[in-house]
């Protein structure tokens, strides 16, 4: 082979820009075979698979998005429920406060009425006591006056000074008595 090449080289190389006819034929045949097998049979398969993969990935993404949307919806639902519960609680608190205030007002009114009743009862008692005291006093005054008069009459009405002394003494006596009316 080396010998043959050497011989060819000695004859001068072929022009590399001139194609061999048989190589054109073989090249065309080779390309045709590859085109049929790789291009026509295999490429559509991988294209189909790639399209399916894209679809699968997009499907997965879609599913994830759906799940997320579902979660979002649930969350919003919970939030709404929570807000509702809060509102309810606030309403109940408000109601309780109102009721409390009402009860307090009622109690206060009752207490005031009771107080008034007690005060009135006390007044009535006092009035009764006073009336009693007055009546007693009136009796006492009559008796005392009679006693005083008998004393004055009993003593000889000698002079003015004596009379005055008698009156003073009498009054002192009255003052010294425990049942004296003030």
């Amino acid at each position, binding site marked *: 082979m080396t010998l043959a090449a050497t011989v060819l080289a000695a004859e001068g*190389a072929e022009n590399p820009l001139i194609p061999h006819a048989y190589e054109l034929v073989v090249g065309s045949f080779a390309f045709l075979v590859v085109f049929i097998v790789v291009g026509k049979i295999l490429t559509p398969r991988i294209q189909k698979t790639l399209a399916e993969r894209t679809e699968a990935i997009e499907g997965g993404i879609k599913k994830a998005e759906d799940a997320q949307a579902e979660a979002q919806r649930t969350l919003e639902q919970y939030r709404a429920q929570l807000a509702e519960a809060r509102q309810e609680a606030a309403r109940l608190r408000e109601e309780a406060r109102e009721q409390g205030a009402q009860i307090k007002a009622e109690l206060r009114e009752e207490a005031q009425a009771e107080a008034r009743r007690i005060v009135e009862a006390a007044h009535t008692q006092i009035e009764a006591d006073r009336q009693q005291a007055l009546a007693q006093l009136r009796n006492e005054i009559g008796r005392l006056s009679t006693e005083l008069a008998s004393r004055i009459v009993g003593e000889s009405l000698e002079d003015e000074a004596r009379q005055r002394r008698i009156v003073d003494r009498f009054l002192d006596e009255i003052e010294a008595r425990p049942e004296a009316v003030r």
Partner: protein
Amino acid sequence: MTPLVLVAEDNFQAPGPSIFDFPPLYDGAPAWLTKPVVFALIGAILVCALAWSAFANPKLVPRGMQNIGEMGYQFVRDQVARPFLGKDAERWMPMLLSMFFLILLWNLFGVVPLIQIPVPSHIAFAIVFAVTVYVIKIYLGIKHQGLGGYFKNMMFPPGLPKPIYILLSPLELVSNLILAPFTHAVRLFANMFAGHMILAFFSAVGFWFLFEKLTPLGSGLGVVGVIMAIVMTGFEMFIQFLQAFLFTLLAAMYIGGSLHPEH
């Protein structure tokens, strides 16, 4: 296996274009049965086999080869098809993907030990793809824009001052109908051709100065040759990928241009 040009002389001779000339595989074989032809066919079978193992029974959750295959598919779809074809990208993926995979594997044969010949370093293989794309481009252009419309859109892009067209129209015509397919094929071919030549050259330097004629003075040069051969192999792999990508990219661009002319 690569027929290095080691002529029975004492002087080092750099490998020339003749390293791309292959005789029939064995004595008495038909003239067309050469190394590039055999590896072109093996490459085609290998592409089919690899693609089959990746895409024959694709799963929703990819495993093993399907991951690698999908990387290739998505690379072509996102970097090549979609930017130029937009919503038509999926429709043209079969052709673009076949083209990209086959050219990539054929290119990579250039650095695979024992194979070591990028198949498109023979221009015929590049021409096959370029002509295919060219025919599709013209057909689609006329189909979608009408015969007159296609040439009008090609030669008279709107929005330019009138006198410019005198200069521009012939240029556009030549560029689109003659130069584009030519450069499309030659770009791939020439890159693979030159890359292979560079690798062969540095390998030959290393082999010559370290094995054939080992001298104290020449051994340093031989080491440089080996190191450069290794470095350039890495670089060549990048170029091989880049050219497969670029070829497919241009194919998508031409097809896209025919489907949706610039307004």
